[in-house]
């Protein structure tokens, strides 16, 4: 059953629009001040604006009579609906991937809409190699980040193999998932193999991620549980070389001269690449030092369509403006101003420039 226009009229009014815009203003400031989460803070004003737009299009004959204004308001409505779909399905995640290893599909952390169609585990994605070049940065604590390149290989469902590179502002896009490098989040990863003293159990190799560099460069230690063991080991990286000295720059690579400090309760051992350390329940084999790099992972299929609707909104607004300029001059006859010492040339010139 169709609603009576009189019921819709208050929802279609410009006063309601103004109220919603002011609400949006307040919500935006609240979000910027981190008083409220963006999705929930903006949901109400955007929903009210969408209702207002639908009602205005239904009730306002003048709006429907102007193709430019109608297109503008329909485009705005499309943007609001697409933004809502985007918030229900988006994914913002982050992950640390060790060089030379396969991405399991498991993220270190994420924010996602309730309807996000999870598909990261279907990506057969392997990190090949990454380069982080640093430039001299005199006077600073460490060198300045320059180029970033990270190479990946992946297979698609039909078995075809692809290879691609992520750069500083060039993501790798697979199945609408966009992988970006997060070069301020990187670090070293000791490669440890645990050979349990249990018959039939195969040795298991783990890449242990040490804290991120450069801000935690003086705290390169972490705790680690060998797989299948209750033992808790404390592992620290010890090396003499300075991390990316500011005077020289260079590339981010594992220090050649280093050793791993392993503590088990009160006992301490130093391991170099290839060394083994025996425990009651297994043998720890230090294979060497690898590197890990942080990535952000985004998924939002509405972005392109929001952009398209936005462009349509702008074009229709410009169309409305040109129509208005063409239709009526800006100078109007005004009571009490019967004469003007300035010739009325401005309106004509504005018409010319608009054409």
């Amino acid at each position: 059953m169709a609603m009576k226009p009189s019921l819709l009229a208050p929802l279609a009014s410009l006063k309601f629009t103004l109220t919603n815009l002011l609400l949006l203003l307040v919500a935006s400031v609240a979000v910027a001040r981190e008083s409220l989460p963006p999705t929930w803070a903006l949901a109400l004003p955007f929903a009210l604006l969408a209702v207002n737009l639908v009602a205005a299009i239904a009730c306002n004959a003048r709006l429907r009579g102007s193709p430019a204004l109608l297109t503008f308001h329909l485009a705005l409505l499309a943007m609001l609906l697409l933004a809502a779909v985007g918030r229900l399905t988006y994914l913002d995640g982050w992950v640390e991937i060790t060089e030379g290893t396969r991405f399991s599909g498991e993220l270190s952390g994420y924010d996602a809409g309730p309807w996000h169609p999870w598909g990261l585990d279907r990506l057969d994605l392997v990190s090949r190699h990454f380069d982080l070049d640093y430039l001299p940065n005199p006077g600073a604590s460490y060198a300045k980040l320059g180029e970033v390149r990270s190479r990946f290989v992946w297979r698609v469902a039909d078995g075809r193999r692809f290879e691609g590179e992520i750069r500083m502002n060039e993501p790798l896009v697979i199945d609408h998932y966009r992988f970006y490098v997060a070069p301020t989040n990187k670090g070293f990863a000791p490669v440890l193999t645990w050979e349990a003293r249990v018959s039939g159990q195969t040795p298991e190799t783990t890449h242990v991620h040490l804290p991120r560099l450069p801000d935690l460069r003086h705290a390169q230690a972490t705790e680690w549980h060998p797989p299948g063991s209750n033992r808790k080991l404390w592992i620290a990286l010890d090396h003499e070389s300075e991390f990316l000295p500011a005077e020289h720059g260079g590339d981010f690579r594992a220090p050649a001269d280093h050793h791993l400090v392993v503590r088990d309760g009160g006992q301490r051992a130093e391991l170099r690449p290839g060394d083994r350390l025996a425990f009651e329940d297994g043998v720890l084999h230090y294979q060497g030092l690898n590197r890990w790099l942080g990535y952000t992972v985004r998924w939002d299929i509405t972005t392109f369509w929001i952009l398209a609707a936005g462009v349509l909104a702008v074009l229709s607004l410009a169309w409305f403006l040109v129509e208005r300029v063409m239709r009526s001059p800006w100078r109007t006859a005004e009571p009490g101003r019967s004469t003007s010492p300035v010739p009325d040339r401005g309106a004509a010139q504005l018409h010319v420039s608009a054409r």
Partner: protein
Amino acid sequence: MNHHLELPLLWIALLAYTAAGVLAILGQIFGRRMERTVLGLVTGGLGLVSLAIVLRWMELGYGPFATMYEILISNVWSLSLIFAVTYWRLPPIRPIAAVVLPVLFVMMGWLLVTDPAGSGLPPTFDTFWLYIHIGFAKVFLGAMLVAVGLAGVVLLRHLFGGRVAFASMPGDASLDELAYRFVLVGLVFDTLMLITGAIWAQDAWGRYWGWDPLETSSFVTWVMLAVSIHLRVTFKLRPVVGATLVMAVFVVGFATFFGIPFITETPHQGTFG
């Protein structure tokens, strides 16, 4: 960097803008408008600022896009250009020079006390979206500056005896209508700026919107523009109220361009991280 040529050019440009502004104000007070001289001084100042930008660009190898000094110099250039074209093409509103030129020469003065050292461009600035995004932003602010000139005249007519000084201009209703049209132009380009900025952010940082201080302030400016236009349509405002709204939107827009980067030190948070 050696600024031995760039800074003297800017000092001469400041003198030209100041002289143009003083002449425009005195012309309105004493009823002797020296429009050709004012236009000549503004055009000359614009030429000098253009030359200073070219010299700096050649020396540093990148455009004026990063530091506060660079944001100021590029905006002085774009605002001067938009104002000079408007002044040339719309003779009936030339007296707005008395309102607009003080804004320009205060910006020039601010520019000359700001550190001119270059900082380099971050890798995310290596994209053509930079030029498109910033270009739209400059047209938006330029349109708003002309609207402010018109609104300023409407307000001055109600204050400080401005009704006599600006008697030769069209009436308040006409100026209000023209200011509203420039605000609409501003809305179009502000929207384009937000859209292109979002595309660039998606490319550079993987999110088209992140509520960083500059993004938030830009969005608040856009909503203020929308509110001012809807207020005008809804309540059929008197010209003096409409003019006050134009001023309010310009203040927020100006703070977005020059206040937020000044507070956060970079155009966008994390840009130089």
